């Protein structure tokens, strides 16, 4: 007898998902015509993973999220979320999902507590994680008792995070979740995500920030102009990334061209800038010298990585949708 484990049902499964906005008036050479926000996107997100959805502004990240949640209607293709078809069963799927929109909007006339109560009531699930989340994100009772209109941007974002996660959803869909959070709160938020993952929950988050994705995501999809360019494990992505390096040097500038992974070298009087791909260690060993005054290795921004690896490939047309 052969024992086989049943195949794991993906939490999100999109097949050829396409979203085009409006026919518009198209005249060759004058722009117009439909906006191709998503083009035949196919991907699967497994249970229990933190999945990053990456791309520059206008790439189609928000369009993908809004289509999955039923705010936008797919032009073609299909998708299921937690087994529910997004076209026919979106109300049922939203019962199991927590959603943080980009640029979280709040009811200014309500207190933080009243806002969370309202959203919890509409969710029709107990806000079992609210107190824990408020504590970890440092929203005190007195903060929650104040009108939301008096909140800072960061505090509003915290309310957004709590309303998305307070009912312990099976799937959290988070659109740019750390916008407005200070670095300490970002760290606290990453720990919350990791705890949710450890508890078997699934996170689907969009982000501009490669560092954030490196920190928490196991897999990522990269989208550009509505085209899914890659779905990779983070380790694979890191192996391809480039960093911008900058050195200040005393005396004659060293020759960096022999160092593995170094490119785009620009030398001025006392400063050298370049890009570095691959392992950092050989580079650091090569430049370690008493003549080195300063060394800066910047983490590459997602946009830079994206365009470095995908420039010239398919998908150059504008996306036009977040």
């Amino acid at each position: 007898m052969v024992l086989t484990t049943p195949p794991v049902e993906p939490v999100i499964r999109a097949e050829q998902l396409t979203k085009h906005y409006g026919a518009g008036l198209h005249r060759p050479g004058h722009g117009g015509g439909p906006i191709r926000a998503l083009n035949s996107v196919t991907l699967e997100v497994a249970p229990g993973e933190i999945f990053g959805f990456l791309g520059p502004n206008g790439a189609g990240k928000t369009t993908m999220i809004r289509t999955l949640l039923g705010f936008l209607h797919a032009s073609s293709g299909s998708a299921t979320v937690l087994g529910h078809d997004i076209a026919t069963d979106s109300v049922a799927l939203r019962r199991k999902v927590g959603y943080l929109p980009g640029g979280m909007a709040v009811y200014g006339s309500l207190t933080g507590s009243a806002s969370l109560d309202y959203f919890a009531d509409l969710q029709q699930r107990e806000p079992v994680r609210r107190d824990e989340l408020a504590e970890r994100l440092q929203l005190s009772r007195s903060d929650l008792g104040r009108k939301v209109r008096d909140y800072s941007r960061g505090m509003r974002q915290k309310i957004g995070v709590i309303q998305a996660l307070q009912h312990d959803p099976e799937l959290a869909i988070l659109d740019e979740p750390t916008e407005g959070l200070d670095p300490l709160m970002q760290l606290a938020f990453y720990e919350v995500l990791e705890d949710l993952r450890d508890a078997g929950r699934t996170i689907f988050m969009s982000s501009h920030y490669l560092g954030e994705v490196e920190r928490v995501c196991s897999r990522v999809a990269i989208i550009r102009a509505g085209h899914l360019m890659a779905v990779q494990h983070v380790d694979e992505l890191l192996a391809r990334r480039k960093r911008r390096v900058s050195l200040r040097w005393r005396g004659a500038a060293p020759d960096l061209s022999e160092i593995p992974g170094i490119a785009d070298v620009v030398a001025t009087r006392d400063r050298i800038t370049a890009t570095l791909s691959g392992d950092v260690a050989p580079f650091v060993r090569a430049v370690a010298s008493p003549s080195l005054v300063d060394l800066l290795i910047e983490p590459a921004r997602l946009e830079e990585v994206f365009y470095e690896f995908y420039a010239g490939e398919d998908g150059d047309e504008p996306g036009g949708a977040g």
Partner: protein
Amino acid sequence: MSLRVLRQSLFWQRGRLIAVGLAALAWGALIPTFYVTFQDLFEGLIEQGFPENLLNFGSGSLFTLGGAMTIGFQHPLGIGLVAVFAIGAAANAVAGERETGTLEVVLARPLSRRRFYVSVGAAVKIAVAVILALLLAGQVLGIYLLGVDDEIDMVMVPLVWVVGLMLWAAFAAFSLAASVSFDRRGPAIGLALAYLGINYFFEILGSFLPDLDWTQEYSLFHHFNPGEIVTGNLDPIDLVILGVAIVVPVIWALWIFPRRDLAAPA
């Protein structure tokens, strides 16, 4: 319908509801006073040859108590009081939340767009019903205080409220239909105000210019005449017309709202 959305929508309107409600009560109480005070003056003007139609206002006049009650509902002040909710709150109900971005936070819950529409629509109609009831209560209060209650059939007064509610439910339904059709409150409120203004223009134009009195037939205001109702002359066709004016925008809203793409707020 979501009772939670209904309750929250009414909660947000509570301050405005109290202020406008008190104003409606006071305005209603003034109407019989105007009638008692100016009736003799106006009749004297007519005996001196002043054109009677210029002393009318819409479908109302100050020559009868019923006519004065009609003026109470058709005067710009009376209309403005009810329009705060039937036009302003209704047109803002969906488009306003859409513009600020809170709609998507609400609709991310297990709540269909139709349920949301029905819930905020019910809240608007409850507010309108309360304002109309207070305006009418003010009129009844004034009528009893001035001792002119024998001039109308007081039993018909609740019917005035019902038909008035139908008239303003029609405007609210149109405003809500505009609200679900736009992503910004400006166009929704503008369209709703234009609809109200056109109806009002046709009603007033016909009352001042007898040659153009046919325009009144095209105004919803003409189909709510408290003066005729309190004298037992309600025309059933008015109910049909107002009913159609309610149902058509409701059907449009229920059809279009679930089909619209709700892109990210700008």
